[in-house]
């Protein structure tokens, strides 16, 4: 299985929870008990076992374009269109 990671731009996050409902690895959680500068509870990646596959499903549903997705790609395949 591919590996990867995401970076959530917390300032943009409105805490809608949609990304947490679609991640197949269930590694995005709401950081309850804390709010961002807009006053929303932000989503965070909790992935100690590095289960993120870089599938980008979270980014497809995020209405606020908060999520940048990275995937680990073999150097020999890098020239291909990956997204």
């Amino acid at each position, binding site marked *: 299985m591919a*590996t*990867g*990671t995401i970076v959530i731009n917390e*300032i*943009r996050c*409105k*805490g*809608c*929870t*949609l990304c947490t*409902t*679609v991640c197949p690895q269930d590694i995005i959680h709401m950081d309850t008990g804390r709010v961002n500068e*807009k006053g*929303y509870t932000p989503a965070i990646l909790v992935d100690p076992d590095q289960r993120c596959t*870089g599938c*980008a*499903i979270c*980014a*497809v*549903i*995020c*209405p*606020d*374009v908060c*999520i*940048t*997705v*990275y*995937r*680990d*790609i*073999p*150097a*020999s395949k*890098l020239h291909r269109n*990956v*997204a």
Partner: protein
Amino acid sequence: MVTLQDELVRTVVYEHPKALTEVPTHYCPGCTHGIAHRLVAEVIDELDIREHTVVVVPVGCAVFAYDYFNLDGVEAPHGRAPAMATGIKRSLRDRIVFTYQGDGDLAAIGTAEIIHAAARGENITTVFINNAIYGMTGGQMAPTTLPGQQTTSSPRGRDIRLAGNPLRITELLAQIDGTCYAVRRSLHSVREIRRAKKALMTAFRTQVNGLGFSIVELLSSCPTNWGITPPDSLKWIEDNMVPFYPLNDFKVSDSVLTMESGA
């Protein structure tokens, strides 16, 4: 064994589209207007048409969309976006011109403009956001409000004996000869969002190829005025809107089929 050549390289596979500015939107949490914006921006990036695309924005929650799209943009009077888009496209023929309109804007006050833009076969594209409600003004009944749906102006549910039946706009526009492409998609799941993007891609390509009027209707959420959470709103679209507003291709003209087949 991992050779040097097959070393894994951490690569960006999804990032903020160039056709969107960095300005955070004013949309409510979980509102799928944001998804619709992103899909349109991705299509514009992939077609590499950002430098000559013009967005005509509506009155409604998307009233500030000219700040969010990293494009030339104009603000139309309520419902008049197709008329403004017509003027822009006819005077600046090399531009790709699209309207982005809600169901109050397009299906109520702007009904005449959209029908006649299609009838004239204007070579413009319309992104039609159907959330079954007037979002911006506080959740009143729209022409697209479902039978029995509670809104602030139909608190006991839309009574079709009093308020008439909802308009299926895309089916209606598909009847018009000047329309080359008229389809409905939805933003309620990852799968449907991906299908929506494909349809937007086709619609913009019809314009690039000069084939006539194109419209993509997107079933969209309004968690705030529906009074439910963002995930429940997506479920509400699937359970209530999709049965009434089927996700079909209502018109794909022969010219579009030829384009799609790569001929």
